């Protein structure tokens, strides 16, 4: 037992010395997350604002002006007037405007007589998501105009139902606040797996693994000595990402650090276990890197619920998402950041992470032999 501790201490000291002298591990642990977080944090946003909208008014008058005024007042739109529909259509085709609002020449006449004057709204549907959001904004502006117009005339509200919207945890409905916690999960998946896969493959490539195996060190000591330092490094990267999220991107943090740390630890264990598994399959750094990128980055990007809603995926794909560790961590992070320590969300996801960590580490331990084949 004392021998074993001595060997572990030796291996750990070696690992820390190597990390100190070879900056590439530190780069992967700290710089890569920072770089990715910056790129994503600034680059990824689903919030439409200042959407260029073409406005065509065939017969300008006060009523039409009150309608277009509502559009101009909205922070979401940047209206641009066109004299004729043909010109506006051209602008729509060349992406100069995202949508057209068209008040036909009989707008005022019909609005004042029977009502239900049709207002043409044509959106460029290529980007379906943005199109839908723009449609929602137009609808809002229209409803506002209806209410204002009716109250001006002292008429009963044309839309008798008054909707109050409460967006919990993210009242400003800022996509950044929800994307960044998810990004952290994605980035840590990548760096966790990449770190261990690369450093172990490096030992194989340089022939030092062979030398270790003939010493008295047991395979458990060798694995543990790899896991511990990179676990700490990964936690450091995690802390750096969280600090960046809070300071650079002003994401609110409602949960407790204890819960964040504990769940991060579980998640990192799963990610490092994945890295251990990869490195036992691939003994050169190139292949290990390739596998790590293909098996972690893309699934974490699409299947973790970080950007695409898991609930809306078809059942078979939804099933696959259960083996993506990032999925559980994304759920935990979004909750801990935006909602707080909601145990009903955290516990089942943390359990799933613990199970995945145990499975990955268990398989890695079982498949590791003190042998070269």
């Amino acid at each position, binding site marked *: 037992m004392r021998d074993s501790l001595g060997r572990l201490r030796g291996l750990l000291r070696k690992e820390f010395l190597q990390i100190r002298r070879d900056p590439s591990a530190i780069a992967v642990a700290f710089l890569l997350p920072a770089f*990715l977080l910056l*790129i*994503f944090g*600034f*680059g990824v*946003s*689903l919030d439409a*604002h200042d*959407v260029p909208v073409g406005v065509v008014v065939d017969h300008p008058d006060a009523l039409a002006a009150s309608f277009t005024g509502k559009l101009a007042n909205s922070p979401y739109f940047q209206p641009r007037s066109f004299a004729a529909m043909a010109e506006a259509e051209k602008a729509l085709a060349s992406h100069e405007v995202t949508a057209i609002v068209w008040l036909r020449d009989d707008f005022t006449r019909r*609005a004042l007589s*029977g009502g*239900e004057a049709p207002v043409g*709204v*044509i*959106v*460029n*549907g*290529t980007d*379906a*998501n*943005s*199109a839908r*959001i723009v*449609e*929602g904004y137009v*609808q809002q502006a*229209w409803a506002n*105009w209806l209410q204002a117009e009716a109250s001006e005339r002292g008429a*009963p*509200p*044309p*839309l*008798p*139902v*008054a*909707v*109050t*919207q*409460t967006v*919990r*945890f*993210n009242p400003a409905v800022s996509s950044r*606040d*929800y994307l960044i916690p998810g990004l952290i999960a994605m980035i840590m998946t990548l760096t966790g797996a990449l770190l261990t896969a690369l450093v172990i493959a490096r030992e194989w490539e340089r022939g030092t693994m062979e030398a270790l195996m003939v010493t008295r060190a047991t395979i458990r000591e060798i694995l543990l000595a790899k896991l511990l330092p990179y676990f700490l490094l990964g936690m450091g990267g995690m802390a750096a990402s969280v600090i960046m999220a809070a300071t650079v991107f002003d994401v609110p943090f409602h949960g407790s650090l204890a819960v964040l740390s504990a769940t991060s630890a579980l998640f990192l264990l799963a990610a490092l276990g994945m890295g251990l598994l990869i490195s036992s399959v691939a003994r050169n750094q*190139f292949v290990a*890197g390739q596998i790590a*990128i293909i098996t972690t980055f893309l699934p974490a990007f*699409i*299947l973790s619920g970080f*950007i*695409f*809603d898991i*609930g*809306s*995926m078809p059942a078979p*794909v939804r099933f696959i998402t259960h083996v993506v560790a990032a999925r559980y961590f994304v759920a935990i992070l*979004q909750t801990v950041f*935006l*909602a707080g320590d909601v145990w009903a*969300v955290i516990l089942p996801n943390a359990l799933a992470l613990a199970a995945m960590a145990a499975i990955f580490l268990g398989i890695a331990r079982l498949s590791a032999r003190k042998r070269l084949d």
Partner: protein
Amino acid sequence: MWHQVFALIVKELLAVLKDRKSRLVLIGPPLIQLMVFGYAATFDLDHVPIAVYDEDLSAESRDLVARFTGSPVFEPKAFLRSARDIDQLIDQRKVAMVLSVDRRFTRDLLLHRPARVQLIVDGRNSNTALLVLGYANSIITDFSLSWVKGHGGRAPPAVLEMRARYNPTLSSQWFIVPGIVAVLTQVVVLLVIGLSVAREREAGTFDQLLVTPMRQIDILLGKGLPGLLIGGIEASVIILAAILWFSVPLRGGLLPLYFGLFLFVAAVTGIGLMISSLAVTQQQALLGAFLFMVPSITLSDFATPIANMPSLIQDLTQINPMRHFLAVVRGVFLEGATVPSLAPHYWPMAAVAAASLFAAGWLFRRRVY
């Protein structure tokens, strides 16, 4: 000269096709990603879990609730009896939205006072939240309009007539699947052809090439043309799958599409060759390719709109070939774009291709290691 280039092309293609790992990269990930991306990457909502807290329990409120439960977008998970349950359900992510109908709903309707309905949405996923609110609002608006009409009220002065050009059903798949053409073509060309210089450097065969009478331009062509060929075939297969399997309409012609593809693959090949000429080892080349790939996909309009980015980053995306090719593919597929209308996207790709290929050719010989 053409003889030498041709020999290099044949060699390059043989090397790719005979190596099991390269073949795998060509066939495996693209196929899986096409299927997974095609189905998983969707912003379309359906069966969103909601809860209903109806305090009024009148015919009117039931009518409103029925409009929600009947919509394919929403799936009611719970009917609540107490306001206390609302927070819990949302906090625990059991439901994405709670529809709460005020106790005086019918009375207020009849008294022409604002009849209150509250929508409580989980903002942890702001995109879903926005879309859910959009759907819910239009259901409520429909209810309002028909209630007013049914109770002899005055019709609203104006109604919206929404139409979506190019994608009438606003299907995410029509948006994402053409995007996959660009993403997968880039991944494959970058990994297979782009990294080949680093691979040859490590094997020592690149020195062998440099010592033959081949000129930089010959090597560049010999490495670049297989990239065009492989990228072209890969893209064609995905384009076919997009049309036949995912039924995305191809409204434009093949000329603007393939002209864009040609420029795009040339640019990606150039960038790949440049990265792998700079790298000392294959591993560095791989990390370099990855560091290029991630931002180029993120900042490309693939999943999140460029229009939402800060203006500095929007300017930066001009040098991203992926961004321009995405505009070409989607433009040709959905909007029937033509060569002249796509010119603003062609020339940046051509410029990146020219610059990167030139740099790669220069690095072939200058790179000291």
